[in-house]
C-alpha cells in the first residue's frame, strides 16, 4: 500500500485489537437483499420519543409510505420498507432482549413506491428546509445510537457550530459496511456531507476515516474537491470513532464532561447517515434500508448487504449462506459495543451496522479473577478514567466513591474489558453503577 498523502490524526490512549476480523467482509461488494415475505419494523427505533403509529392492521401501504409520525422534536418518522399489507402491530423479540412493539408488513411482492416528496436543490434551499426534509424522511444516526439527525443539526442558538465531521472511522472490529459505502457510493457520501454541512450552516465539513481504509480515502480524496469537503485520515485505534474522541482527533477540541459536541462547535454524523441524507434530499427517499455487514467466523459467506429495515436477522443470515457451525453468540452491532441477542427473530433496525456471529471457542465462558492492577485498562481508557479502581469500588457496592471518580463519564467503549488480562467485566459493572447512581439521584430529586 502506498503511503497516503493526508494528515493522520488520533486521540490519546485506546486499544488496538490485533486481529480485527475486517478481512472477512472487507472485499465483498454491497449486494441488495431480495424481497422477503414479511418485514417487522420496530416502532421505537430512535433515541428519544417513539413515533406515533399512523397505520392500522389490514391497511395497504406503499413502499416509503409513512408508518409512524414523529411524536415530538426528538423523534423520527418510520416508513414502510416495501409495499404490502399491514398484518398488525405485534410484540416481537427486541434488540435489548425485551419484547418490542413492531409493525408487521406482509409484502405484496410488487415493491411499489408510494408518493415521495419532491427532490430539493440543496444548494438553493435553506438549511431549515433541509432539516425538515431530514426529519420527514426519518433519518437517524446510523452508526449505532439512532439519535434523530435533525436534532443534532439544530444545536441551541447560543452554541456556534463551525465544524461538521462525517464519521467514517468504523473503528469497531469486523464491521465493513461504512467502508464499502465510502468506496462504492463515494459521491453520495460527499454529497450528503455537503448537504449536512449546509443544513447546519457550517463552513468546514470533513470526512474522517481510519487509515486501514486506504482505498476509501483515495476514492474520497479524488472527488472531495467538487463538494468542498475535507478528508482526514486517522490512526487505527479503538475507539477512534467515538464522538468525543473523533472530535478531539480531528479538531483538537475536548468536549467537556457531560457536554455535547455542540459545546465545542462540532456536529458528528455517520457516513451511512450522509448517504441517507443525500437520498432524502435529492430523491425524497425516506430511510428504509441500510448497508449492514453480516459477518463472523461461523458465517458461510460474510458480506455487506443492503437490507430493508425490518428484515429479521434470521433472514439476513440466510442471505449469507447460514453458518458453518453453531455459533456461540449473536451480536447486533460490532463486537466492542454491540448487544448480544437472545433470539434470531430480531429485525434489522436503522442503526444495525452489523450482524455478527462469534464462535463458541472465541467467546468461551470466562471467569473474572481479581484485578492485578496491571494498568492496561488505564492505558486503554479513551476517557482517561481509572477503570480498574472503579470496578473494584463497584464490586464493593461503593457507588458514591465511583461517582466521585467520574464513573458517569464512561462512554462504555469496552476498551478496558477488552484489555483486561483478568477478564473482569468492567463495562458491565460500570453500567450497573450508572444505573444505581441514576436511581439514587432520582430518589434525591423526589
Amino acid at each position, binding site marked *: 500500500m502506498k503511503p497516503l498523502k493526508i494528515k493522520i490524526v488520533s486521540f490519546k490512549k485506546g486499544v488496538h485489537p490485533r486481529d480485527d476480523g475486517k478481512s472477512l467482509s472487507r472485499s465483498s461488494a454491497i449486494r441488495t437483499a431480495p424481497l422477503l415475505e414479511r418485514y417487522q419494523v420496530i416502532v421505537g427505533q430512535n433515541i428519544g420519543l417513539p413515533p406515533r403509529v399512523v397505520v392500522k392492521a389490514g391497511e395497504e401501504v406503499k413502499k416509503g409510505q409513512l408508518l409512524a409520525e414523529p411524536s415530538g422534536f426528538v423523534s423520527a418518522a418510520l416508513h414502510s420498507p416495501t409495499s404490502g399489507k399491514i398484518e398488525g402491530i405485534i410484540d416481537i423479540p427486541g434488540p435489548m432482549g425485551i419484547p418490542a412493539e413492531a409493525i408487521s408488513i406482509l409484502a405484496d411482492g410488487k415493491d411499489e413506491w408510494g408518493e415521495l416528496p419532491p427532490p430539493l436543490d440543496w444548494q438553493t434551499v435553506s438549511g431549515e428546509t433541509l432539516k425538515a426534509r431530514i426529519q420527514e424522511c426519518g433519518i437517524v444516526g446510523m452508526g449505532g445510537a439512532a439519535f434523530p439527525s435533525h436534532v443534532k443539526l439544530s444545536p441551541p442558538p447560543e452554541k456556534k457550530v463551525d465544524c461538521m465531521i462525517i464519521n467514517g472511522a468504523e473503528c469497531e472490529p469486523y464491521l465493513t459496511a461504512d467502508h464499502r459505502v465510502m468506496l462504492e457510493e463515494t459521491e453520495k457520501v460527499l454529497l450528503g456531507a455537503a448537504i449536512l454541512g449546509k443544513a447546519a450552516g457550517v463552513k468546514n465539513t470533513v470526512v474522517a476515516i481510519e487509515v486501514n481504509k486506504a482505498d476509501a480515502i483515495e476514492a474520497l480524496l479524488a472527488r472531495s474537491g467538487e463538494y468542498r469537503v475535507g478528508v482526514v485520515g486517522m490512526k487505527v485505534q479503538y475507539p477512534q470513532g467515538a464522538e*468525543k474522541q473523533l472530535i478531539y482527533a480531528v479538531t483538537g477540541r475536548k468536549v467537556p464532561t457531560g457536554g455535547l459536541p455542540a459545546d465545542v462547535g462540532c456536529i458528528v454524523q455517520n457516513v451511512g447517515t450522509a448517504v441517507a441524507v443525500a437520498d432524502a434530499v435529492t430523491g425524497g427517499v425516506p430511510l428504509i434500508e441500510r448497508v449492514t455487514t453480516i459477518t463472523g467466523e461461523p458465517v458461510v459467506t460474510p458480506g455487506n448487504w443492503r437490507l430493508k429495515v425490518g428484515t429479521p436477522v434470521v433472514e439476513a443470515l440466510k442471505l449469507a449462506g447460514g453458518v458453518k457451525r453453531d455459533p456461540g453468540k449473536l451480536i447486533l452491532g460490532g463486537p466492542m*459495543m454491540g448487544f448480544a441477542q437472545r433470539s434470531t427473530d430480531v429485525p434489522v433496525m436503522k442503526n444495525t451496522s452489523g450482524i455478527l456471529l462469534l464462535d463458541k471457542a472465541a467467546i468461551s465462558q470466562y471467569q473474572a479473577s481479581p484485578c492485578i*492492577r496491571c494498568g492496561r485498562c488505564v492505558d486503554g481508557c479513551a476517557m482517561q478514567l481509572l477503570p480498574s479502581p472503579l470496578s473494584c469500588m463497584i464490586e464493593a457496592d461503593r457507588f458514591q466513591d465511583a461517582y466521585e471518580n467520574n464513573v458517569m*463519564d464512561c462512554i462504555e467503549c469496552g476498551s478496558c*474489558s477488552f484489555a483486561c488480562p483478568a477478564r473482569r467485566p468492567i463495562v458491565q459493572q460500570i453500567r450497573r453503577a450508572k444505573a444505581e447512581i441514576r436511581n439514587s439521584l432520582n430518589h434525591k430529586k423526589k
Partner: protein
Amino acid sequence: MTQDSKVQLMLPKGEELLLSPSPHIHDKESIQSIMLKVVLAMLPVVAAGVYFFGLDALRVIGWCVFFCVGLEMVWCFFAGKPVLGTVKDGSTLVTGILLALNLSAATSWWVCLLGGILAIWLGKQVFGGLGQNPFNPAAVARVGLLIALPRELTTWVPARGMTADLNSYSKAFYTTPDFTRLQEAGQVVDGMTCATPLSLAQTTTKVLGHGEQAAYNFAEIANPEAYWQYFLGNMGGCLGETSALAILAGGVMLLAMKLIRWQIPVFYIGTVALFSGLVNLLWPGVTPPPLFHLLTGGLMLAAFFMATDMVTSPITPKGAAIFAVMLGIMTCVIRIWGGFPEGVSFSILLMNALVPLIEKIAAIKPFGFRKAAAVKGGA
C-alpha cells in the same frame, strides 16, 4: 426457528446463544501469560545467579519456588479454594523466584520456608490473594527475614570470579579469616563468606567517619575496574541482584513486552544517581559515587523486578513516576545515613504503603474534565 423448509441452511439456534455484556472480544493476554512472560524475563537473572554462585543458587531457587507453591496450595486447601486454582496463574512462581533472587546463595532451606510463609501467607494470602496485597510479597519476606534473622540474611558467599583470582579489587571484600593466608597454611576451607560492596561502604563510614580517609577508602571499592566487575556480577550479594548485566537484559525484555511501566526503572535509577551524586559531590566522604550505588546491592533488581510489581505500584504513569522518585530518595537516605547497608527492600515496603495516597494525589483528569462542570453535575 426456520419454518422455511426449502432452504437447507444451518442457522444458529436461539437457546444456545450466550448472553454477555459488551465487549464481546478480548485481548489474548491473560494473567497466566503475563506471569509466564515475567518468569521468562527473570531467566537471565536466574542464569546469572547460577553462573556466579553455582548450584547453591539453583538449590535456593528450588526451595523457594517449592515452598511458595506448596504454601499457596496449603492455604488454598484450608481456605476452601481450589487448590490448584491460584497456582495455575503463575504468580506464585514469580513470587518464589523473586524471593530466591533476594536471598544469598548460602541460605538454608528453613530460611526459604520462613521466607515463603512471610511472602505467601503474610504478604499475600491474608489480604485475599493475588491482586489484593498492598505490599510486595517478596519484599515483605526479605524485610521480615532481615529483621528476624540478620545473620542468616547477611551471610554472603563470594561470586565465581572472586574466588578464581584474588585481584586487588575482590580482596577488599573478604572478611576474616583471610583466605590467602589460610590456603598458604594448607588448611581446608569449608566455605567462605564475603562482604557486599554496600556493607563495606557502610563499615568504612562507621569506622572512619565522614572524612577524607573514608573518601580515599571508597576509591578502593569504587573504581572503573570494580564497576566493570559489579556490572558483570562479580560481587557478594543476593543471588539475583549481583549481575546488573543480566538484570538489564531481563528488564529490556519486560519493557519490550510492555509488562512494566518504563517510568519506574527510569525515574528510580535516575533519582538514585542524582541524589547520591549530589551527596557525593558535596561531601565526598559521606558516600561513594553514584555509579557505585547503581551497580551494587539490590537496586537494579528492584528497579526492574521488585518495584515494578503491578499489584503494589501505582496504576497510572504519573503515579508510577512519583512512586519511583520517592523510592529513589528513600533508598538513598537509608543507604547513606541509615543503620542498614541496603535500603531497597525497606523503601519498597514504605512506598508500597504510600501507593494509595500517591494514587489519590496523582489521579488523572478525565477527558474533557472541567471543575465547574463537575460541580454542576454533582448537584
